[in-house]
Protein backbone atom coordinates (compact mmCIF):
# COMPACT_ATOMS: atom_id res chain seq x y z
CA UNK A 1 0.00 0.00 0.00
CA UNK A 2 1.41 3.41 -0.89
CA UNK A 3 0.12 6.90 -0.18
CA UNK A 4 1.15 9.83 -2.39
CA UNK A 5 1.49 13.40 -1.13
CA UNK A 6 3.40 16.62 -1.58
CA UNK A 7 5.69 17.77 1.18
CA UNK A 8 8.47 20.24 1.91
CA UNK A 9 8.70 23.96 2.23
CA UNK A 10 6.46 26.37 0.36
CA UNK A 11 7.96 27.02 -3.04
CA UNK A 12 9.96 23.81 -2.88
CA UNK A 13 7.24 21.21 -2.77
CA UNK A 14 8.34 17.62 -3.36
CA UNK A 15 6.37 14.59 -4.50
CA UNK A 16 6.54 11.67 -2.10
CA UNK A 17 5.12 8.19 -1.82
CA UNK A 18 5.00 6.43 1.53
CA UNK A 19 4.99 2.65 1.28
CA UNK A 20 3.65 0.82 4.32
CA UNK A 21 2.03 -2.40 5.43
CA UNK A 22 -1.43 -2.98 4.07
CA UNK A 23 -3.67 -2.57 7.10
CA UNK A 24 -1.36 -4.37 9.52
CA UNK A 25 0.03 -2.41 12.46
CA UNK A 26 3.53 -1.02 12.12
CA UNK A 27 6.36 -2.89 13.77
CA UNK A 28 7.02 -1.27 17.12
CA UNK A 29 10.20 0.78 17.02
CA UNK A 30 10.81 0.00 13.37
CA UNK A 31 13.15 2.27 11.50
CA UNK A 32 12.16 4.07 8.33
CA UNK A 33 13.84 3.87 4.95
CA UNK A 34 14.49 6.72 2.51
CA UNK A 35 15.06 5.57 -1.07
CA UNK A 36 16.86 7.93 -3.44
CA UNK A 37 16.59 7.75 -7.20
CA UNK A 38 19.48 8.39 -9.59
CA UNK A 39 19.63 11.71 -11.40
CA UNK A 40 18.47 12.44 -14.96
CA UNK A 41 17.44 9.60 -17.26
CA UNK A 42 18.54 6.79 -14.96
CA UNK A 43 15.98 8.03 -12.45
CA UNK A 44 13.23 7.50 -15.02
CA UNK A 45 14.60 4.14 -16.10
CA UNK A 46 14.86 2.69 -12.61
CA UNK A 47 11.67 4.18 -11.18
CA UNK A 48 9.60 1.02 -11.11
CA UNK A 49 12.46 -1.03 -9.68
CA UNK A 50 12.78 1.39 -6.75
CA UNK A 51 9.00 1.48 -6.38
CA UNK A 52 8.92 -2.31 -6.16
CA UNK A 53 11.75 -2.37 -3.64
CA UNK A 54 9.92 0.22 -1.55
CA UNK A 55 6.69 -1.79 -1.74
CA UNK A 56 8.44 -4.98 -0.66
CA UNK A 57 10.21 -3.32 2.28
CA UNK A 58 7.13 -1.33 3.29
CA UNK A 59 5.00 -4.48 3.26
CA UNK A 60 7.33 -5.96 5.89
CA UNK A 61 6.53 -3.16 8.34
CA UNK A 62 9.32 -0.72 7.55
CA UNK A 63 7.80 2.59 6.39
CA UNK A 64 9.61 3.55 3.21
CA UNK A 65 9.64 6.85 1.39
CA UNK A 66 10.34 7.35 -2.30
CA UNK A 67 10.35 10.92 -3.56
CA UNK A 68 11.21 13.14 -6.52
CA UNK A 69 14.11 15.54 -6.20
CA UNK A 70 13.20 19.21 -6.62
CA UNK A 71 13.14 19.97 -10.35
CA UNK A 72 12.44 16.33 -11.26
CA UNK A 73 9.36 14.14 -11.65
CA UNK A 74 6.24 15.59 -10.06
CA UNK A 75 8.10 17.89 -7.69
CA UNK A 76 8.08 21.62 -8.17
CA UNK A 77 10.86 23.42 -9.98
CA UNK A 78 12.78 23.01 -13.21
CA UNK A 79 15.59 20.62 -14.01
CA UNK A 80 17.85 23.63 -14.48
CA UNK A 81 17.54 24.25 -10.75
CA UNK A 82 19.26 21.02 -9.72
CA UNK A 83 22.17 21.72 -7.38
CA UNK A 84 24.16 19.71 -4.88
CA UNK A 85 23.02 21.86 -1.98
CA UNK A 86 19.42 21.64 -3.19
CA UNK A 87 19.59 17.85 -3.33
CA UNK A 88 20.87 17.78 0.24
CA UNK A 89 18.06 20.03 1.35
CA UNK A 90 15.62 17.60 -0.31
CA UNK A 91 17.14 14.75 1.71
CA UNK A 92 16.66 16.76 4.86
CA UNK A 93 13.02 17.43 3.97
CA UNK A 94 12.48 13.75 3.11
CA UNK A 95 13.94 12.60 6.43
CA UNK A 96 11.75 14.99 8.38
CA UNK A 97 8.65 14.01 6.44
CA UNK A 98 9.20 10.28 6.86
CA UNK A 99 9.84 10.70 10.56
CA UNK A 100 6.75 12.86 10.96
CA UNK A 101 4.44 10.56 9.03
CA UNK A 102 5.69 7.21 10.28
CA UNK A 103 6.94 7.92 13.77
CA UNK A 104 10.16 6.10 12.93
CA UNK A 105 12.88 7.11 15.32
CA UNK A 106 15.82 5.99 13.22
CA UNK A 107 16.32 6.06 9.50
CA UNK A 108 18.09 3.94 6.97
CA UNK A 109 19.14 5.36 3.62
CA UNK A 110 19.43 3.75 0.21
CA UNK A 111 20.87 5.43 -2.89
CA UNK A 112 20.98 4.00 -6.39
CA UNK A 113 23.77 5.03 -8.78
CA UNK A 114 24.38 8.81 -8.90
CA UNK A 115 22.10 9.42 -5.89
CA UNK A 116 25.04 8.23 -3.78
CA UNK A 117 26.84 11.56 -4.26
CA UNK A 118 24.23 13.91 -2.75
CA UNK A 119 23.37 11.33 -0.10
CA UNK A 120 26.95 10.91 1.06
CA UNK A 121 27.48 14.69 0.95
CA UNK A 122 24.45 15.10 3.20
CA UNK A 123 25.16 12.25 5.61
CA UNK A 124 28.85 12.99 6.01
CA UNK A 125 27.92 16.30 7.58
CA UNK A 126 25.89 14.60 10.30
CA UNK A 127 27.18 14.02 13.81
CA UNK A 128 25.35 10.80 14.69
CA UNK A 129 26.12 7.46 13.00
CA UNK A 130 24.07 6.63 9.92
CA UNK A 131 22.97 3.42 8.23
CA UNK A 132 23.46 3.51 4.47
CA UNK A 133 22.94 1.14 1.56
CA UNK A 134 24.64 2.05 -1.71
CA UNK A 135 23.27 0.20 -4.71
CA UNK A 136 25.61 0.22 -7.70
CA UNK A 137 26.96 3.59 -6.51
CA UNK A 138 28.74 6.08 -8.74
CA UNK A 139 31.33 7.70 -6.50
CA UNK A 140 33.58 9.43 -9.00
CA UNK A 141 31.95 12.77 -9.85
CA UNK A 142 34.31 13.55 -12.70
CA UNK A 143 33.78 10.19 -14.33
CA UNK A 144 30.01 10.49 -13.85
CA UNK A 145 29.82 13.83 -15.67
CA UNK A 146 32.12 12.56 -18.43
CA UNK A 147 29.92 9.50 -18.89
CA UNK A 148 26.83 11.67 -19.08
CA UNK A 149 28.40 13.87 -21.73
CA UNK A 150 29.56 10.88 -23.74
CA UNK A 151 26.11 9.29 -23.55
CA UNK A 152 24.56 12.58 -24.71
CA UNK A 153 26.93 12.69 -27.68
CA UNK A 154 26.06 9.11 -28.57
CA UNK A 155 22.33 9.82 -28.30
CA UNK A 156 22.71 12.69 -30.75
CA UNK A 157 25.02 11.04 -33.23
CA UNK A 158 25.22 7.28 -32.89
CA UNK A 159 22.16 5.82 -31.25
CA UNK A 160 19.96 5.82 -34.35
CA UNK A 161 17.65 8.28 -32.62
CA UNK A 162 17.76 10.67 -35.57
CA UNK A 163 17.26 8.87 -38.82
CA UNK A 164 16.74 11.86 -41.08
CA UNK A 165 18.65 14.75 -39.54
CA UNK A 166 21.46 16.02 -37.38
CA UNK A 167 20.55 18.41 -34.64
CA UNK A 168 22.29 21.02 -32.58
CA UNK A 169 21.04 20.79 -29.02
CA UNK A 170 20.54 23.80 -26.79
CA UNK A 171 23.74 24.64 -24.94
CA UNK A 172 22.58 23.28 -21.60
CA UNK A 173 20.86 20.16 -22.95
CA UNK A 174 22.11 16.98 -21.35
CA UNK A 175 20.52 13.55 -21.68
CA UNK A 176 17.13 15.03 -22.50
CA UNK A 177 17.16 17.53 -19.64
CA UNK A 178 18.33 21.09 -19.04
CA UNK A 179 21.25 20.94 -16.66
CA UNK A 180 23.09 23.88 -15.17
CA UNK A 181 26.83 23.94 -15.87
CA UNK A 182 27.42 24.99 -12.27
CA UNK A 183 25.73 21.80 -11.04
CA UNK A 184 27.91 19.70 -13.31
CA UNK A 185 30.96 21.51 -11.95
CA UNK A 186 29.81 20.71 -8.41
CA UNK A 187 29.47 17.06 -9.32
CA UNK A 188 32.84 16.99 -11.07
CA UNK A 189 34.51 18.29 -7.96
CA UNK A 190 32.59 16.05 -5.61
CA UNK A 191 34.90 13.55 -3.98
CA UNK A 192 32.83 11.01 -2.05
CA UNK A 193 35.89 8.79 -1.63
CA UNK A 194 37.33 11.48 0.64
CA UNK A 195 34.16 12.23 2.58
CA UNK A 196 33.87 10.54 5.97
CA UNK A 197 30.65 9.34 7.48
CA UNK A 198 30.32 9.70 11.26
CA UNK A 199 32.26 7.08 13.20
CA UNK A 200 30.04 4.14 14.11
CA UNK A 201 28.10 4.39 10.84
CA UNK A 202 27.35 1.35 8.73
CA UNK A 203 27.60 1.14 4.94
CA UNK A 204 26.42 -1.79 2.86
CA UNK A 205 27.28 -1.78 -0.82
CA UNK A 206 25.27 -3.91 -3.24
CA UNK A 207 27.24 -3.97 -6.46
CA UNK A 208 27.63 -5.95 -9.63
CA UNK A 209 31.36 -5.36 -9.56
CA UNK A 210 33.83 -3.81 -7.14
CA UNK A 211 36.25 -1.34 -8.64
CA UNK A 212 39.13 0.78 -7.48
CA UNK A 213 36.95 3.76 -6.55
CA UNK A 214 34.67 1.62 -4.39
CA UNK A 215 37.67 0.00 -2.75
CA UNK A 216 39.14 3.41 -1.93
CA UNK A 217 35.82 4.58 -0.54
CA UNK A 218 35.46 1.48 1.64
CA UNK A 219 39.03 1.80 2.89
CA UNK A 220 38.59 5.46 3.81
CA UNK A 221 35.36 4.77 5.66
CA UNK A 222 36.87 1.91 7.62
CA UNK A 223 39.73 4.16 8.66
CA UNK A 224 37.11 6.58 10.00
CA UNK A 225 35.48 3.89 12.11
CA UNK A 226 32.66 3.01 9.70
CA UNK A 227 31.65 -0.62 9.13
CA UNK A 228 31.58 -1.39 5.41
CA UNK A 229 30.30 -4.56 3.80
CA UNK A 230 29.85 -5.38 0.14
CA UNK A 231 27.46 -7.82 -1.47
CA UNK A 232 27.93 -8.91 -5.05
CA UNK A 233 24.79 -9.03 -7.16
CA UNK A 234 24.10 -11.51 -9.91
CA UNK A 235 26.20 -10.40 -12.86
CA UNK A 236 23.70 -11.96 -15.26
CA UNK A 237 21.16 -9.20 -14.76
CA UNK A 238 23.50 -6.22 -14.61
CA UNK A 239 21.67 -3.32 -16.28
CA UNK A 240 23.02 -1.94 -19.54
CA UNK A 241 23.21 1.58 -18.15
CA UNK A 242 25.60 2.92 -20.77
CA UNK A 243 24.41 1.16 -23.93
CA UNK A 244 23.03 3.89 -26.22
CA UNK A 245 20.35 1.69 -27.75
CA UNK A 246 19.00 0.87 -24.26
CA UNK A 247 18.87 4.49 -23.13
CA UNK A 248 15.07 4.61 -23.18
CA UNK A 249 14.53 1.14 -21.76
CA UNK A 250 13.33 0.46 -18.25
CA UNK A 251 15.77 -1.14 -15.83
CA UNK A 252 14.35 -3.80 -13.56
CA UNK A 253 16.89 -6.27 -12.15
CA UNK A 254 14.37 -8.52 -10.43
CA UNK A 255 16.76 -10.70 -8.46
CA UNK A 256 18.65 -7.68 -7.14
CA UNK A 257 15.40 -6.03 -6.05
CA UNK A 258 14.30 -9.22 -4.26
CA UNK A 259 17.71 -9.75 -2.71
CA UNK A 260 17.87 -6.17 -1.44
CA UNK A 261 14.35 -6.33 -0.06
CA UNK A 262 15.16 -9.51 1.86
CA UNK A 263 18.32 -8.02 3.31
CA UNK A 264 16.78 -4.68 4.18
CA UNK A 265 14.04 -6.48 6.10
CA UNK A 266 16.45 -8.87 7.80
CA UNK A 267 14.89 -11.92 6.20
CA UNK A 268 18.34 -12.74 4.88
CA UNK A 269 21.58 -11.59 6.58
CA UNK A 270 23.90 -9.19 4.77
Amino acid at each position, binding site marked *: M*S*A*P*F*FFGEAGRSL*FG*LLHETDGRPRIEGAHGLVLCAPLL*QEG*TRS*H*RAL*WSLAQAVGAQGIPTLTF*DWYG*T*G*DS*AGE*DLELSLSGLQSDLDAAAKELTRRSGATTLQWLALRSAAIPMLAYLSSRAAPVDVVLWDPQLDGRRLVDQWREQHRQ*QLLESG*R*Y*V*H*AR*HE*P*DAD*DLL*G*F*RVDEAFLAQLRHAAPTRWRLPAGSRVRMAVWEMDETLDRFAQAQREAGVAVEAVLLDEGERPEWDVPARF*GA*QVFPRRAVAQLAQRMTAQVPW
Partner: protein
Amino acid sequence: MNLQIDNLRALAEVADVTPEFAPQESVHRFGDGLVGVVTRPSRACSKVGVLLLNAGLTRHTGPFRLHVDLARTLAARGFPVLRFDQAGLGDSDAPVRTTGDRRQHEIEAAMRLLAEQTGAMRFVLCGLCSGADDAFHVAAVHPRVSGAILLDGVAFPTPGFWLRHVLPRLLNAGKVLRYIASRRNAGPALADFRDWPAKADARRMLSGMVDRGTRLLFVFTGGAYHYFNHRDQLAAGLGRAARAPQVALEYWREYDHTFYLRKHRRVLIARIEAWMRSEFGPSESN
Protein backbone atom coordinates in the same frame (compact mmCIF):
# COMPACT_ATOMS: atom_id res chain seq x y z
CA MET B 1 -5.34 21.36 -40.77
CA ASN B 2 -1.62 21.75 -40.41
CA LEU B 3 0.78 24.28 -39.02
CA GLN B 4 4.12 24.49 -40.73
CA ILE B 5 7.18 23.83 -38.63
CA ASP B 6 8.52 27.38 -39.00
CA ASN B 7 5.31 28.75 -37.53
CA LEU B 8 5.55 26.23 -34.74
CA ARG B 9 9.06 27.32 -33.93
CA ALA B 10 7.73 30.84 -33.52
CA LEU B 11 5.01 29.47 -31.25
CA ALA B 12 7.61 27.58 -29.28
CA GLU B 13 9.56 30.77 -28.70
CA VAL B 14 6.43 32.27 -27.23
CA ALA B 15 5.75 29.16 -25.17
CA ASP B 16 9.22 29.38 -23.69
CA VAL B 17 8.56 32.73 -22.12
CA THR B 18 4.90 32.16 -21.29
CA PRO B 19 3.30 31.76 -18.27
CA GLU B 20 3.89 33.49 -15.05
CA PHE B 21 2.02 30.55 -13.70
CA ALA B 22 2.49 28.77 -10.43
CA PRO B 23 0.86 25.40 -11.02
CA GLN B 24 -1.78 24.30 -8.58
CA GLU B 25 -1.26 20.59 -8.31
CA SER B 26 -2.73 17.91 -6.11
CA VAL B 27 -1.83 14.27 -5.94
CA HIS B 28 -4.41 11.50 -5.77
CA ARG B 29 -4.79 7.81 -5.24
CA PHE B 30 -7.93 6.63 -7.03
CA GLY B 31 -9.54 3.66 -8.77
CA ASP B 32 -7.82 0.35 -8.06
CA GLY B 33 -4.63 1.78 -6.56
CA LEU B 34 -3.87 4.28 -9.32
CA VAL B 35 -1.77 7.37 -8.63
CA GLY B 36 -1.98 10.65 -10.50
CA VAL B 37 -1.45 14.39 -10.31
CA VAL B 38 -4.12 16.96 -11.19
CA THR B 39 -2.89 20.31 -12.50
CA ARG B 40 -5.62 22.93 -12.41
CA PRO B 41 -5.85 26.42 -13.87
CA SER B 42 -5.60 29.26 -11.41
CA ARG B 43 -8.38 31.24 -13.12
CA ALA B 44 -11.32 30.19 -15.31
CA CYS B 45 -11.26 26.46 -15.80
CA SER B 46 -12.34 24.89 -19.08
CA LYS B 47 -14.92 22.13 -18.98
CA VAL B 48 -12.62 20.16 -21.24
CA GLY B 49 -10.03 18.22 -19.28
CA VAL B 50 -6.94 16.47 -20.59
CA LEU B 51 -5.74 13.01 -19.55
CA LEU B 52 -2.09 12.17 -20.19
CA LEU B 53 -1.53 8.43 -20.60
CA ASN B 54 1.64 6.44 -19.99
CA ALA B 55 4.12 6.39 -22.85
CA GLY B 56 5.09 2.72 -22.95
CA LEU B 57 6.46 1.71 -19.55
CA THR B 58 7.51 5.25 -18.67
CA ARG B 59 6.08 6.78 -15.52
CA HIS B 60 3.28 9.37 -15.72
CA THR B 61 5.79 12.25 -15.69
CA GLY B 62 6.52 11.31 -19.31
CA PRO B 63 9.77 10.99 -21.21
CA PHE B 64 12.16 13.73 -20.03
CA ARG B 65 9.31 15.15 -17.93
CA LEU B 66 7.28 15.99 -21.04
CA HIS B 67 3.95 15.34 -19.31
CA VAL B 68 4.77 17.63 -16.40
CA ASP B 69 5.68 20.50 -18.72
CA LEU B 70 2.68 19.83 -20.94
CA ALA B 71 0.28 19.68 -17.99
CA ARG B 72 1.56 22.94 -16.54
CA THR B 73 1.42 24.69 -19.93
CA LEU B 74 -2.15 23.55 -20.66
CA ALA B 75 -3.30 24.46 -17.16
CA ALA B 76 -1.84 27.94 -17.63
CA ARG B 77 -4.14 28.15 -20.67
CA GLY B 78 -7.20 27.12 -18.71
CA PHE B 79 -7.32 23.35 -19.25
CA PRO B 80 -7.30 21.04 -16.23
CA VAL B 81 -4.99 18.07 -16.70
CA LEU B 82 -4.52 14.70 -15.02
CA ARG B 83 -1.35 12.71 -15.57
CA PHE B 84 -1.56 9.25 -14.02
CA ASP B 85 -0.09 5.80 -14.06
CA GLN B 86 -2.04 2.88 -15.34
CA ALA B 87 -1.92 -0.25 -13.17
CA GLY B 88 1.48 -1.88 -13.06
CA LEU B 89 3.33 1.25 -14.13
CA GLY B 90 5.07 4.12 -12.36
CA ASP B 91 3.59 4.78 -8.94
CA SER B 92 0.40 2.75 -9.34
CA ASP B 93 -0.28 -0.67 -7.85
CA ALA B 94 -0.07 -3.87 -9.83
CA PRO B 95 -3.26 -4.63 -11.81
CA VAL B 96 -6.21 -5.98 -9.90
CA ARG B 97 -8.32 -6.63 -12.97
CA THR B 98 -7.10 -9.01 -15.58
CA THR B 99 -9.99 -8.54 -17.96
CA GLY B 100 -9.52 -6.92 -21.34
CA ASP B 101 -11.53 -3.84 -20.39
CA ARG B 102 -9.02 -2.81 -17.69
CA ARG B 103 -7.69 0.05 -19.82
CA GLN B 104 -11.15 1.53 -20.23
CA HIS B 105 -12.00 1.13 -16.53
CA GLU B 106 -8.82 2.94 -15.54
CA ILE B 107 -9.36 5.80 -17.96
CA GLU B 108 -12.97 6.10 -16.79
CA ALA B 109 -11.76 6.29 -13.18
CA ALA B 110 -9.33 9.02 -14.25
CA MET B 111 -12.12 10.94 -15.96
CA ARG B 112 -14.26 10.73 -12.82
CA LEU B 113 -11.41 12.02 -10.70
CA LEU B 114 -10.70 14.96 -13.00
CA ALA B 115 -14.42 15.75 -13.16
CA GLU B 116 -14.72 15.71 -9.36
CA GLN B 117 -11.64 17.82 -8.89
CA THR B 118 -12.14 20.43 -11.60
CA GLY B 119 -15.65 20.18 -13.01
CA ALA B 120 -14.41 18.89 -16.36
CA MET B 121 -17.26 17.39 -18.36
CA ARG B 122 -15.55 16.31 -21.56
CA PHE B 123 -12.10 14.92 -22.11
CA VAL B 124 -9.16 14.84 -24.47
CA LEU B 125 -6.89 11.79 -24.26
CA CYS B 126 -3.23 12.31 -25.07
CA GLY B 127 -0.63 9.59 -25.44
CA LEU B 128 2.67 8.69 -27.04
CA CYS B 129 3.28 5.25 -28.57
CA SER B 130 1.27 2.73 -26.51
CA GLY B 131 -0.42 5.71 -24.85
CA ALA B 132 -1.64 6.75 -28.29
CA ASP B 133 -2.96 3.24 -28.85
CA ASP B 134 -4.87 3.40 -25.58
CA ALA B 135 -6.23 6.84 -26.46
CA PHE B 136 -7.41 5.65 -29.88
CA HIS B 137 -9.24 2.62 -28.47
CA VAL B 138 -11.01 4.52 -25.69
CA ALA B 139 -11.79 7.63 -27.75
CA ALA B 140 -13.54 5.41 -30.27
CA VAL B 141 -16.07 4.12 -27.74
CA HIS B 142 -16.41 6.65 -24.96
CA PRO B 143 -19.04 9.37 -25.39
CA ARG B 144 -17.34 11.83 -23.03
CA VAL B 145 -14.11 11.79 -25.02
CA SER B 146 -14.18 14.79 -27.35
CA GLY B 147 -10.66 14.62 -28.62
CA ALA B 148 -7.46 12.62 -28.85
CA ILE B 149 -3.83 13.58 -29.35
CA LEU B 150 -1.99 10.62 -30.83
CA LEU B 151 1.79 10.84 -30.87
CA ASP B 152 3.29 8.15 -33.09
CA GLY B 153 -0.04 6.38 -32.91
CA VAL B 154 -1.83 4.00 -35.20
CA ALA B 155 -1.11 4.03 -38.95
CA PHE B 156 -0.83 1.22 -41.44
CA PRO B 157 1.98 0.62 -43.88
CA THR B 158 0.73 0.97 -47.44
CA PRO B 159 2.30 -0.01 -50.78
CA GLY B 160 3.57 3.56 -51.02
CA PHE B 161 5.14 3.25 -47.59
CA TRP B 162 7.00 0.10 -48.60
CA LEU B 163 8.27 1.69 -51.80
CA ARG B 164 9.60 4.70 -49.93
CA HIS B 165 10.99 2.49 -47.17
CA VAL B 166 12.63 -0.24 -49.19
CA LEU B 167 13.91 1.43 -52.37
CA PRO B 168 16.58 3.62 -50.76
CA ARG B 169 17.71 0.69 -48.65
CA LEU B 170 18.14 -1.59 -51.66
CA LEU B 171 20.95 0.68 -52.77
CA ASN B 172 22.76 0.16 -49.49
CA ALA B 173 24.47 -3.23 -49.34
CA GLY B 174 25.05 -3.00 -45.59
CA LYS B 175 21.39 -2.45 -44.90
CA VAL B 176 20.39 -5.32 -47.18
CA LEU B 177 22.74 -7.68 -45.35
CA ARG B 178 21.50 -6.51 -41.96
CA TYR B 179 17.93 -7.07 -43.12
CA ILE B 180 18.69 -10.61 -44.26
CA ALA B 181 20.41 -11.33 -40.95
CA SER B 182 17.48 -9.92 -39.02
CA ARG B 183 15.07 -12.20 -40.90
CA ARG B 184 17.12 -15.20 -39.82
CA ASN B 185 17.05 -14.18 -36.18
CA ALA B 186 13.65 -12.59 -36.21
CA GLY B 187 13.05 -10.72 -32.95
CA PRO B 188 9.76 -9.22 -31.88
CA ALA B 189 7.88 -7.34 -34.57
CA LEU B 190 6.11 -3.99 -34.33
CA ALA B 191 2.82 -5.75 -33.68
CA ASP B 192 4.29 -7.33 -30.55
CA PHE B 193 4.71 -3.92 -28.94
CA ARG B 194 1.62 -2.12 -30.14
CA ASP B 195 -2.07 -2.57 -29.61
CA TRP B 196 -3.59 -1.61 -32.91
CA PRO B 197 -6.99 -2.78 -34.09
CA ALA B 198 -7.22 -4.64 -37.36
CA LYS B 199 -7.07 -2.21 -40.26
CA ALA B 200 -10.76 -2.51 -41.14
CA ASP B 201 -11.72 -1.97 -37.50
CA ALA B 202 -9.41 1.03 -37.20
CA ARG B 203 -11.03 2.61 -40.26
CA ARG B 204 -14.48 2.06 -38.77
CA MET B 205 -13.37 3.44 -35.41
CA LEU B 206 -11.92 6.60 -36.97
CA SER B 207 -14.95 7.08 -39.16
CA GLY B 208 -17.21 6.73 -36.11
CA MET B 209 -15.18 9.29 -34.17
CA VAL B 210 -15.32 11.75 -37.04
CA ASP B 211 -19.07 11.28 -37.38
CA ARG B 212 -19.41 12.00 -33.68
CA GLY B 213 -17.40 15.19 -34.02
CA THR B 214 -14.36 13.96 -32.08
CA ARG B 215 -11.30 16.12 -32.79
CA LEU B 216 -8.04 14.33 -33.46
CA LEU B 217 -4.46 15.47 -33.65
CA PHE B 218 -2.05 12.93 -35.14
CA VAL B 219 1.66 13.63 -34.77
CA PHE B 220 4.19 11.32 -36.39
CA THR B 221 7.95 11.61 -35.94
CA GLY B 222 10.99 10.17 -37.61
CA GLY B 223 10.93 7.62 -34.78
CA ALA B 224 7.99 5.99 -36.53
CA TYR B 225 9.99 5.58 -39.75
CA HIS B 226 9.51 1.81 -39.66
CA TYR B 227 5.76 2.19 -40.23
CA PHE B 228 5.06 5.79 -41.29
CA ASN B 229 6.93 7.90 -43.83
CA HIS B 230 4.53 10.19 -45.65
CA ARG B 231 1.61 12.45 -44.72
CA ASP B 232 -0.70 10.84 -47.28
CA GLN B 233 -0.20 7.47 -45.62
CA LEU B 234 -2.62 8.31 -42.84
CA ALA B 235 -5.64 8.56 -45.11
CA ALA B 236 -4.37 5.78 -47.36
CA GLY B 237 -4.41 3.46 -44.36
CA LEU B 238 -7.26 4.78 -42.26
CA GLY B 239 -9.63 5.96 -44.96
CA ARG B 240 -11.31 9.20 -45.96
CA ALA B 241 -12.20 10.08 -42.38
CA ALA B 242 -8.53 10.93 -41.87
CA ARG B 243 -9.04 13.89 -44.22
CA ALA B 244 -11.99 15.29 -42.27
CA PRO B 245 -11.68 18.91 -41.11
CA GLN B 246 -11.46 17.96 -37.45
CA VAL B 247 -8.49 15.66 -38.06
CA ALA B 248 -5.13 17.44 -37.87
CA LEU B 249 -1.87 15.82 -38.88
CA GLU B 250 1.74 16.72 -38.31
CA TYR B 251 4.63 14.74 -39.72
CA TRP B 252 7.97 15.71 -38.22
CA ARG B 253 10.35 13.28 -39.83
CA GLU B 254 13.45 14.93 -38.38
CA TYR B 255 12.28 14.47 -34.77
CA ASP B 256 12.81 11.38 -32.63
CA HIS B 257 10.17 9.23 -30.96
CA THR B 258 10.54 10.50 -27.38
CA PHE B 259 11.37 14.16 -28.11
CA TYR B 260 14.81 13.93 -26.57
CA LEU B 261 15.78 17.52 -27.37
CA ARG B 262 14.14 20.33 -25.47
CA LYS B 263 13.69 22.40 -28.60
CA HIS B 264 11.59 19.59 -30.07
CA ARG B 265 9.53 19.30 -26.90
CA ARG B 266 8.90 23.03 -27.05
CA VAL B 267 7.53 22.68 -30.57
CA LEU B 268 5.35 19.74 -29.56
CA ILE B 269 3.96 21.51 -26.51
CA ALA B 270 3.31 24.66 -28.55
CA ARG B 271 1.48 22.63 -31.19
CA ILE B 272 -0.68 20.83 -28.66
CA GLU B 273 -1.43 24.07 -26.85
CA ALA B 274 -2.42 25.79 -30.11
CA TRP B 275 -4.55 22.83 -31.13
CA MET B 276 -6.32 22.68 -27.76
CA ARG B 277 -7.09 26.38 -27.93
CA SER B 278 -8.36 26.24 -31.48
CA GLU B 279 -10.50 23.14 -30.92
CA PHE B 280 -11.56 23.60 -27.30
CA GLY B 281 -10.91 27.26 -26.58
CA PRO B 282 -13.08 29.50 -24.40
CA SER B 283 -16.05 29.40 -26.77
CA GLU B 284 -16.04 25.62 -26.51
CA SER B 285 -15.44 25.42 -22.82
CA ASN B 286 -19.04 24.94 -21.79
